């Protein structure tokens, strides 16, 4: 066993893990953070996407020991004070999901994309979420949701700027 210290969704944890434990299993089984799901065995689907020190990664392709000392954000930690994150809200409003299995990963990848590119074109959104597979929606409404969220987040930022 190895000891790790991680901060997950704003809470500090110190835990013993086997070196072979995947980050996603640590999150789900040891911390009970079941918002992050596993959709494949091949690192392709992106359903398990979380942020590791601010960058989107596939948590099924990271060992928990590699996250020692790092900060992890899961879908459970993106909302603030009980309110949905703008990207969560946009997926809800634009019908960016059907069964919802891909949604946690889609949202985490989209937040990561918007941090690099605040106003992505349709093609840029599609490329930005190329690591995430959806079996239901056909992606149209997911792309719309990400663009709607970008617009809202842009406006919100301008709002703050004007007040300052």
């Amino acid at each position: 066993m190895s000891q790790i210290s991680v901060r997950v969704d704003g809470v500090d944890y110190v835990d013993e893990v086997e070196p072979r434990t995947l980050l996603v299993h640590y999150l789900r089984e040891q911390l009970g953070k079941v918002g992050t799901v596993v959709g494949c065995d091949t690192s392709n689907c992106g359903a398990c996407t979380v942020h590791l020190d601010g960058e989107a990664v596939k948590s099924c392709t990271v060992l928990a020991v590699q996250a020692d000392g790092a900060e992890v954000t899961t879908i459970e930690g993106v909302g603030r004070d009980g309110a949905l994150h703008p990207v969560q809200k946009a997926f809800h409003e634009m019908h960016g999901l059907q069964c919802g299995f891909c949604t946690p990963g889609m949202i985490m990848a989209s937040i990561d994309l918007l941090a690099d590119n605040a106003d992505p074109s349709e093609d840029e959104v599609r490329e930005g979420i190329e690591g995430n597979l959806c079996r239901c929606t056909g992606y149209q409404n997911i792309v719309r949701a990400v663009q709607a969220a970008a617009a809202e987040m842009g406006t919100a930022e301008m709002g703050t700027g004007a007040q300052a």
Partner: protein
Amino acid sequence: MIPAPFAYARPTSVDEALQAIADGGEDVKILAGGQSLIPVMRLRLAAPETVVDLGRVAGLRGVREEDDAIVVGAMTTHSDVIADPLVQQWAPIVAQATETVADRQVRHRGTFGGALAHADPAGDLPAVALALEAEFVIAGLSGRRTVPAVEFFVDYLTTALEEGELLVEIRLPKLAGTWGMHYEKFNRVAQAWSIVAVAALVRREGDRIAEARIGLTNMGPTPLRASAAEAALAGVPATREAVAEAAAHAAENTSPSSDLNAQADYRHHLAQVLTRRAVIAAAGL
């Protein structure tokens, strides 16, 4: 599935890492970004006794300038390579090819050195390194050695790295400015590996092509140079017609596989088409 149990070492220097590899037993695996290794361990296609994680080894991450080369640390992630100003200035084809690798999540973890050491024939960076005539700096318990790209890629998933050795950095000559360069990749869907891809570098002298270097991805068990096409391009007028004629030689002496994605004869065809496109772009035509 989850990996089989293993002992885990997390060295903080190259010397410690080499010692950990030496002490790790029969089957030791080096862990870089883990984006190729963890999937095969999860499928139990690999079940190493010891995993030596390079994640905390100081000095293996980042890009620096050294005379007529830029030096990329083996642990520099794909996303850091893409954003690096030295790479963009001196070897933009490396950034261009790296942008086509996998997806954002994989690029945040996967490393330049890991992709080269893994030497997957469908991997995008080996052919680029071969066309650039990059040099590989390898560390072992008995010291360091430098291996040219042409000797680094030995066979399918096999490199000049000996047991117990570590790839520490890769030297890329500063060719941009005198050479034009372009990476042309063909794949069917997002996030997929290359069916075939071509890395082309072209040096022009006025309205002629003086020299060309062409690296082929997935046209054999290792990345290959399209030597016949390179010879045919030397000295020809810099026109689309002359390039098209020379590019027809691109698949000579290659031995691509036939698999679910493509038959060998289709890969031969693709190599010619993609070489034409890549050389035209690299020559600015």
